[in-house]
């Protein structure tokens, strides 16, 4: 039996690169999709709103794991073969997009109605209202829940191991099977996860500080 040493540690560290890559895929794909969904939700267009609502409901209420399976095997059934990269991109984007979309819709709707009225009365168009008045205020509302979810995503990427991605969790299991030193292995894995997530929360705090120029934030507008 091997013991848990530097090569094993480096192996796990290498696998953590996949954790990072998968998270980035979720952020980019999910972020873009979430933006579209959020604006569809607040567009005032019933069709767009209904579609976005259904989308969010569907993907918030199904486990990411099922989603990964369905895309992965579904793709195989259509004859395009098994493409884990494609499957993971689609599944993570759909999943993260639903959450981002709902978080950002909430942030947009949290801006008091008076802000819409005042800017409308000043002659702003809807796009100008979003750009100059609503979005700058929603952004700081959205930061804590957005970063909170981003941290969740880092940890949830471990599910991608099920369709063959050797990311951090999968690699840790592998190393544990070889060394049978679960405490050391999983402590190290947890530490790596922590090191990946901690900067995100730091970033959140800094962004919040920078955007909260008007502290103390207005209680009632």
């Amino acid at each position, binding site marked *: 039996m091997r013991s848990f040493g530097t090569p094993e540690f480096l192996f796990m560290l290498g696998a953590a690169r996949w954790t990072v890559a998968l998270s980035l895929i979720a952020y980019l794909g999910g972020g873009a999709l979430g933006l579209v969904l959020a604006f569809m939700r607040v567009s005032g267009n019933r069709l767009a709103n209904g579609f976005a609502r259904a989308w969010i409901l569907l993907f918030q209420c199904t486990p990411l794991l099922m989603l990964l399976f369905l895309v992965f095997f579904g793709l195989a059934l259509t004859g395009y073969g098994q493409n884990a990269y494609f499957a993971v991109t689609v599944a993570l984007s759909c999943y993260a997009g639903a959450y981002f979309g709902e978080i950002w819709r909430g942030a947009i709707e949290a801006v*008091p109605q008076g802000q819409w009225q*005042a800017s409308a009365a*000043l002659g702003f168009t809807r796009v100008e209202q979003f750009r100059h008045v609503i979005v700058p205020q929603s952004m700081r509302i959205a930061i804590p829940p957005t970063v909170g979810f981003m941290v969740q995503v880092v940890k949830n990427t471990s599910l991608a191991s099920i369709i063959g991605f050797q990311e951090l969790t999968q690699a840790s299991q592998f190393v544990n099977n070889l060394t049978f030193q679960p405490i050391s292995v999983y402590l190290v894995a947890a530490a790596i996860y922590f090191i990946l997530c901690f900067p995100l929360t730091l970033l959140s705090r800094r962004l919040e500080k920078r955007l909260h120029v008007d*502290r103390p*934030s207005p209680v009632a*507008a």
Partner: protein
Amino acid sequence: MSIVQVQSLHKRYGSQTVLDGVSLDIAAGEVVAIIGRSGSGKSTLLRCINGLETIDGGSITVAGHAVSRAPKALRALRQDVGMVFQSFNLFPHLTARENVALPQTVVLGRGKAEAQAMAQTLLDRVGLAPRADAYPSALSGGQQQRVAIARALGLEPKVLLCDEITSALDPEMVGEVLEVVQDLAARRMTMLLVTHEMSFARRAASRVIFMHAGRVHEQGPPAEIFARPRTPEFMQFVRAISVRE
């Protein structure tokens, strides 16, 4: 020549009639106070005049613009009709100066430097030049409301609509906002003021309109109308007010 013309305006919310045939002519330079019980349609009338509410019948013309829903017409209208709200509604993420400058750059297409200079002038006019760099949360209610007035003035409106602009203020701050309104009146700004403050109506207005049940019930110069109410509804209103004051 009247600058605001309202003809048999009707507005309903569901089955409830809020405005039931309001007709009104306001000449340039007039300061009109609109009073009445809550629910009499005062605020709704103001909101119809700058297109914040759709109307169900009648017509409104302001400074040559027929009020309609067409986005272009609405924008042109709102450049000529400023509005100040009870709850100030300043943009909390911008300083006082930026609050006043932003609509000028966005809506009028003014250059940033020009808008900022204009903002500084307007803030000076409402007595807030030294607070130009403060964020709304650092300003008192009275100060916020004065910034809101300066913001509306930035678009150089021909008519200013004030919707209970002193109602959310502590009593000691009402005076400073009133002063600004009186200064504007002296500069011949046409204003429609919905208000609960009868002293405000008495002092600032050249005409008082009493609204009741969605109609203009009684109107006249403040000295006259308060001294000799003609209708029982207005008499009752004046009595209720004088007891409170």
